């Protein structure tokens, strides 16, 4: 990929980000980075802080402290709108598609193309179709069928296509994209994830399924109890290593003791 030379300046770089909800420290001083053209997996047990980290990045719950850089620029993202404006798109686990609308309407929801106040259906359908084809999504019968009639994998594909369709999308975050899918459909989605990285997007995939992660991820960031305990290269590590990090990874900070690194 053309992006391999840019390894030194990541697409997204979070340094020391923290977020607490009242007395609960959800994440603490996490470092997290994503490069363009790579698939970064984000793993951890329930409550490890994966969702909080993502919600901080896209501005749903902005971080309390720490810095975020996007494309080398320090940014402060206060809302999902601002994240989208920068080119960060999230595909949520529950997909956020409207069942009663067709594929095209869903892909353009909230950003419909209009001409003199009237929706330009032809332009929208044309662009939606081109986007799906660029992602090699070939299983849809028609882009004018309602989402209610799609399989789980097809829905995931539509949601991903929706995220990448916007010309300025640079980073795609996938929240448990294979959680509810069968074998064949998981296959489709993983292929899609790989294709996104090939096309130069920075991809973050949150998953509980290590098998899936080892198929597509380039690197793996492990969170444990709100802290980042490891960043591994997929090629140099085994599933055993990841499981160990998830369950017993070494914490850098003592919970509740500010700025006190664990004496090793």
């Amino acid at each position: 990929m053309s992006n391999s030379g840019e390894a030194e300046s990541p697409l997204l770089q979070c340094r020391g980000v923290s977020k607490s909800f009242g007395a609960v420290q959800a994440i603490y001083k996490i470092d997290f980075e994503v490069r363009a053209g790579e698939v970064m997996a984000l793993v951890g047990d329930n409550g490890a802080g994966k969702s909080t980290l993502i919600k901080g990045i896209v501005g749903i719950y902005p971080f309390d402290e720490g810095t975020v850089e996007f494309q080398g620029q320090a940014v402060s993202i206060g809302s999902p709108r601002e994240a989208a404006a920068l080119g960060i798109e999230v595909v949520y686990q529950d997909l956020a598609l409207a069942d009663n609308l067709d594929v095209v309407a869903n892909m353009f929801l909230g950003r419909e193309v209009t001409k003199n106040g009237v929706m330009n259906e032809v332009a929208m359908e044309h662009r939606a179709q081109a986007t799906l084809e660029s992602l090699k999504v070939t299983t849809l019968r028609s882009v004018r069928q309602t989402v209610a009639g799609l399989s789980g994998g097809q829905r995931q594909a539509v949601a991903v296509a929706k995220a990448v369709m916007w010309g300025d999308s640079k980073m795609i975050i996938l929240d448990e994209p294979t959680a509810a899918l069968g074998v064949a459909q998981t296959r489709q989605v993983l292929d899609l994830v790989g294709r996104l990285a090939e096309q130069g997007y920075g991809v973050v995939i949150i998953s509980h399924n290590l098998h899936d992660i080892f198929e597509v991820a380039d690197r793996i960031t492990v969170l444990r109890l709100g802290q980042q305990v490891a960043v591994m290269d997929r090629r140099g590590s085994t599933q055993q290593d990841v499981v160990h990090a998830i369950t017993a990874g070494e914490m850098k900070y003592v919970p509740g003791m500010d700025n006190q690194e664990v004496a090793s």
Partner: protein
Amino acid sequence: MSDDDIRDVEFVDEATGEVLGIDDANQAALAGPGRTAGFAGPTSGVKEYLRQRWDSVKAGELGSLPIIVGLIVIVLVFGTLEDQFLTSRNFTNVLLQMAPIAFLAIGIIFILLIADGEVVTIDLSVAFVAATCGTVLVLLQRPDDPGWPWWAAILAALLLGTAIGLLHALIITKLGVPSFVTTLAGFLVWSGVVLWLTLDFTDAGFIRIQDQRLVDLANKFFEDDWVGWALGAAVVAVYALIRLNDLRSRAARGLTSTPFPIVMAQIVGVAVLSFGAVAIANSDRGVPLVTLILGLFLAFWTFIVSKTRFGRHIYAVGGSPEAARRAGISVDNIRIACFMINGFMAGVGGTILVSRLRSTSSNIAGGNLLLEVIAAAVIGGVSLFGGSGRIIAAFYGALVITSIKNGMELMGLSSGFKFIITGIVLLLAVLVDSISKRRRTQRGLA
């Protein structure tokens, strides 16, 4: 060598030496019908099109099918049981009788469309809001007291309806009171207001409309035959223009579309229906003015819901409020707007109602008006579960409900019987909705 093969060759020539990527996909999509690689989708075959339509009917997307079946049953049943039913005089009567229901049903559709997931949104007050608006109109136009001109009185009725819709909407969205409860309270309040206006405020109980122009709205016919024919021709021309233009612009971008013979058949069908209706109406008193007004409202709101972003967002809010919210749509604003449209249409319906009765009185919205309005929307194919249904459903549903009522009255059935049969028809319509929704959901999960 077939057409497709030739296009393939051209495409390869163009693409020679090009780097594979998004651009290729764009070119593929641009290259014309048959080049929509990857979509084993609808092509221009009539057979294929019909097969797909049948598949989607089986999967629970029924469209207008229940209505067509229902109308055929009505024509057969009442046509055989009652000589007077299938006469041109009765046809124009039905057109007049259905008008108030149809106007109010248009408004109710906007409420049903925004149902919040499993919770039905409803307006139980619509009949009495309409009655309030109509009564205010009648009071305002009384000569010298205060003697407003007819158009100002109508404007006041429409504004009042819209304001009442806004009031209900604010209580529902900002204070979180369910629509069922809010409008149940509204049902009582506005029926009380009607009683107060007609009994206490004026001490009359019955106020006649003096201005003939107001009476004409719901009672006048176009007696000159040519007007009816011109209206019929306008309907066909507009329909044909929209369909053919759509076909042309889709073909220009290489998108698949409904096969041309099917579109032509649909245009011919619309022509047969509208000219047939005009012919029947002309053989009696002519096309009613109120039918023209209804047609204009149907066309306007159909345009709004199907061609504008606002309309698309209404369906999104009704289908998945969460998806709409994440897409940056203000769900509350859409809901408020829908309640205001419903209130506005209640103003229109109230105007037509008092015009048709040439008066207002203390029991103007008595009887079953509310139930008939909601039944009309549901029978017309608007889902109670939100996010599904077209504006034309108001017309279909009002036609069905009015035909049944009209037929039963011609047969001289007792009130008890009429209630029972109307109730069963409503239940059937809701059953069709529920079952088809279940089919759709099952298919989605499969």
